[in-house]
């Protein structure tokens, strides 16, 4: 069990990050707010409790790596990286602006803390596996956390990657499927059904855990359990798209639409009340 105080601290951090997300997307008048809010608790758990990393040394060799394969959710990773100190929070104002290192989708050479270019769906999981294979070759023991969207794994490349991880026994990989059942055009089960999802990954040779992606106890404990496995692990994290802002929750329209002034202010108010 993780101590309760720590969890309260993480929950407070998540509110700060969510405020930053809606602010960034509103200010840029562009970006993906729903998926970012939904993935926030997992990223907060990883960056503020689970992962071994040094924000002042982004290239520290033994760091755990996080690859955001669902690359459209840059608001959450940028907000977390800035808060951790990888770059000044001031930079968040330049999200999606010309001259900024904060591109709409992750661009590794430009942004401290971003580990891989992603954006076209399916790329990040393969790239993360290539990185994990590299660490295996060197006999290193750090971990690779890869977050995929559920819509994303409709891409064939995701399943190519699934086979690859099994073949090379990449037990240093802990993946997350951000399972919110929503994608750009609607419900995932209407657009291209994915269920039953856990048996799919299992049949590809992965160990699968299914959790509540907003429950810090579960997220953290499951990662600990995953580290005991001798095969690649996929954590199917059930989440609510738009989590934390009532009118955005489970609303597909907030996938890629920025909040206008009124929606932004209402969102901030809710997120303040949440602390």
């Amino acid at each position, binding site marked *: 069990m993780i101590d309760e105080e720590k969890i309260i601290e993480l929950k407070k951090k998540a509110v700060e990050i969510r405020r930053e997300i809606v602010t960034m997307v509103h200010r840029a008048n562009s970006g993906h707010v729903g998926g970012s809010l939904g993935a926030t608790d997992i990223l907060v758990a990883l960056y503020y409790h689970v992962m071994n990393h040094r924000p002042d040394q982004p290239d520290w060799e033994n760091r755990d790596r996080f690859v955001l394969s669902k690359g459209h959710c840059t608001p959450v990773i940028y907000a977390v990286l800035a808060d951790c100190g990888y770059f000044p929070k001031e930079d968040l104002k330049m999200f999606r602006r010309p001259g900024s290192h904060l591109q709409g989708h992750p661009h*590794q*050479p430009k942004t401290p803390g971003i580990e891989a270019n992603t*954006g076209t769906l399916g*790329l990040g999981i393969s*790239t993360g596996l290539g*990185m994990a294979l590299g660490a295996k070759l060197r006999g290193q023991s750090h971990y690779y956390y890869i977050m995929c969207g559920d819509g994303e794994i409709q891409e064939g490349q995701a399943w190519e*990657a699934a086979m*690859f991880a099994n073949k090379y026994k990449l037990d240093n990989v802990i993946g997350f499927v951000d399972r919110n059942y929503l994608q750009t055009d609607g419900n995932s089960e209407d657009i291209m059904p994915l269920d039953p999802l856990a048996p799919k990954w299992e049949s590809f040779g992965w160990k699968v855990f299914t959790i509540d992606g907003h429950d810090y106890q579960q997220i953290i404990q499951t990662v600990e359990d995953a580290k005991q496995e001798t095969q690649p692990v996929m954590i199917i994290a059930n989440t609510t798209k738009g989590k934390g802002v009532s009118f955005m929750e489970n609303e597909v329209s907030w996938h890629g639409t920025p909040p206008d002034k009124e929606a932004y202010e209402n969102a901030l108010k809710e997120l303040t009340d949440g602390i």
Partner: protein
Amino acid sequence: MEFKQTRQGYVDGLKELAKDHDNLVVLDADVAKATKTYEFEDEYPDRFFNCGVQEQNMLSVAAGLALEGYIPFASTFGVFATCRAGDQMRNSIAYPKLNVKIGATHCGISTGGDGASHQANEDIAIARVFPNMTVLVPGDYEEAKQATIAAAKHNGPVYLRFGRDAYPVVEEVHTDFTIGKAKLLREGTDITIITTGIMVSEGLQAADTLSQAGYSVRVLHLPTIKPLDVEAVIAAAKETKGIITAEEHSIIGGLGEAVAGVVGEHHPCPIIRVGVQDVFGESGQADELLDLYGLRAKNIVEAARRIL
């Protein structure tokens, strides 16, 4: 005349490099026997990864290995690298400028019997349009080996283009291989023949024919399509009456258009592009297809006579 495969030059280059580059790794997508990388696997099994029939995953995995400090050579047929996995080449490799080398074999019409689905006649066009991508198209076995070694020593993404068949060995191109540098094989003032890849031997034969007819023919060989040796091309445009480009690739988007772009901007002159026209190929023997699609010395000569 001796004939050797450029893909053999690729794997021989890899084996030579592996001796003193511990971080060199080779990937293949279930065509190791065809790309010849199985020979690398035999000698360095721990540094070889067969990804199965997964070109897209392979290129992104290669990107991940490059991020960890390895020099991955991802090997497959040219069509699969550029067309099937074009997005991975663009977004996983070229955009972040990662140190991935793509070893593409079975390029060009001479791939032969498998027909259009396997004949990469568009790959140079696709590879060169991506920013950060270096594109190397060696002309014979030895140059292929040199290009592979040069690619490994170059920091950044490189597309290496090889063929399937055995092609003439051309002693004249066995000079120092420098990425971005043209090789001036013949001096001349009447016309310039610019070749890339296996068309170098046809270009030299064409130059011989034209020389015997009394013309002064310059032959430039460009084993690097990108970055193009702009100076050598502009000099040819200024110092001769016209340019014939010769490539075993579509006339759209390859050497011919790269040269035409530079010449058009700097010193316009007549240019005729010898290459595969805007058509898909068909099955046949390499020799038959080179004849059928007009990729012979005589076609270069005919083109030159239209300018002279």
